[in-house]
């Protein structure tokens, strides 16, 4: 659905040229919810804004649904934008227009005949759950309600893609959850491809299928969210994951351990199977759980346990091999074997 090829965006600043986006190539499939994660200044916002050409890339190509947007200008670009919805962290509704008129504005941009606007706006308001707020001005709405209006406005012209620029970053956790489930519903029911940028890893964990991690304008890691959570490749990715799934063990506890400490990662269905108890029965080792949890990413369990193993060296090695044999991943994080 979206093909980004060798995209770069260079900004001229007083300190010289700054590469906001540095040679990024990404492919986002139709119907996917794709998350781009990074700290502020990583270039994720620039990248997102390049997708609908709110910022014109310095070089590279962007294809959305087969159309090369970078080749478009003026009226052609405007018409292409009708098929790409966008929502923002600070909503950016027209404060002097009612909820109804804010949504109608998008329809007018697409030249929808006046007699069809009313029905369509009501349909959209119904979908985002704001049917009773039609004649209210944005200042009378809560943050979550404003974002719902933003979503209705973005979806007015049946776009194929929805871009979300930190759409939940200004909302409290409960509201964030409700907005995320609305986005999920839109993705499922309307088959709209969603690209979102965020610095909150729990947003990605909650709704994204695939993700990219950005640093200094570059994509440093990319793949299925589950795989990245299960097997992060870079320090930064690890940092992001630890922001939602932390396995920090107090120093005092670690110092009190005598045996090797291992991290066991179970992926998918096997996370719920009793591998550890089987292992403890088959081998002459004792296990001491230090930390652990089962995270559900896209409803697939990912189990991560940290335990201290005690016993004969051979028995420990055997037990680790046993776990690896059962399609789990084992990592010795302290104390060699």
């Amino acid at each position: 659905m979206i093909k980004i090829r060798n995209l770069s965006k260079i900004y001229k600043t007083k300190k010289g040229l700054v590469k906001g986006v540095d040679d990024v190539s990404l492919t986002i499939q139709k119907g996917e919810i794709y998350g781009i994660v990074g700290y502020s200044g990583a270039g994720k916002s620039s990248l997102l804004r390049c997708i609908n050409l709110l910022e014109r890339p310095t070089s590279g190509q962007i294809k959305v649904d087969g159309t090369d947007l970078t080749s478009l200008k003026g009226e052609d670009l405007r018409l292409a934008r009708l098929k790409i919805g966008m929502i923002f962290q600070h909503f950016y509704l027209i404060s002097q227009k009612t909820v109804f008129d804010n949504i109608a504005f998008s329809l007018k941009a697409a030249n929808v005949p006046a007699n069809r606007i009313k029905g369509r706006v009501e349909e959209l308001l119904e979908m985002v759950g704001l049917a009773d707020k039609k004649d209210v001005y944005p200042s009378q709405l809560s943050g979550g309600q404003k974002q719902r209006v933003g979503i209705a406005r973005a979806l007015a012209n049946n776009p194929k893609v929805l871009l979300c620029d930190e759409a939940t970053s200004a909302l409290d956790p409960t509201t964030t959850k409700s907005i995320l489930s609305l986005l999920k519903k839109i993705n499922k029911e309307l088959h709209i491809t969603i690209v979102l940028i965020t610095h909150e890893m729990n947003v990605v964990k909650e709704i994204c299928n695939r993700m990219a991690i950005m640093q200094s304008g570059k994509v440093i890691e990319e793949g299925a969210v589950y795989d990245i959570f299960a097997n992060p490749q870079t320090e930064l990715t690890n940092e992001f994951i630890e922001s939602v799934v932390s396995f920090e063990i107090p120093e005092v506890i670690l110092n009190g351990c005598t045996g090797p400490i291992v991290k066991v990662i179970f992926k998918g269905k096997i996370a719920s199977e009793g591998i550890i108890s089987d292992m403890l029965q088959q081998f002459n080792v004792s296990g001491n759980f230090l930390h652990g949890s089962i995270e559900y990413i896209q409803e697939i369990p990912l189990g991560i346990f940290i335990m201290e193993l005690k016993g004969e060296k051979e028995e420990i090695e055997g037990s680790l091999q046993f776990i690896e044999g059962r399609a789990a991943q084992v990592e010795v994080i302290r104390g060699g074997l």
Partner: protein
Amino acid sequence: MGFDYHHFIELIPDINLAFMQTVYMITISLIVAVLIGLPIGILLFVTDKGLFLENRWFKNGLGFVVNLVRSIPFIILLVALLPLTDWIVGSTIGPTAASVSLSVAAIPFFARIVETALREIDKGVIEAAIAAGATPWMIVKDVLLLEAKSGIISGVTLTLVSLIGFSAMAGTVGGGGIGDLAIRFGYYRYDNTIMIATVVILIILVQIIQLAGDFIAKVVDKR
């Protein structure tokens, strides 16, 4: 010499005429200033860097002309524009003639106020409209003018009050008006009655305009 009540009663017809002349001049000038100044203000804004009709040469050129007119003291502008006034009105004296110079002075003044009011709009709202695929005309009409409505109304108030001040100099071309009356009778002839009466009228007029302007600006704002 203080305020002479009988003298005041005598002068009521003169004051009344001057008042109507002032209203006439500032109404014409305000209408012209809004009709021409508003589009200029919008052009100054939308051609600025980073906006949807960015055009450096146009912006700088228009900005230069606006500054040029604004830098000329009004009393000089009034005289300098006499040929233009003659060409448009067919005469160089009277309130109608004075309205030409007043309008020319008010256009760039109001244009800059409009530009400033538009700058107050959150750029994100404009960007959201661009992302929604809105045409430039839709953005001007439904976003810029609407979002800056309150600021523009305050600008109209400000322009009106300034016009009342400027109109006092209209006497130079025999334009008449309250301010002219105050200068010619009150100041040159030491007629304190008329001086006090005209100043009081001007104070009341300005207060009413400012209060009404502030009220309207507040009522139309939905924020």
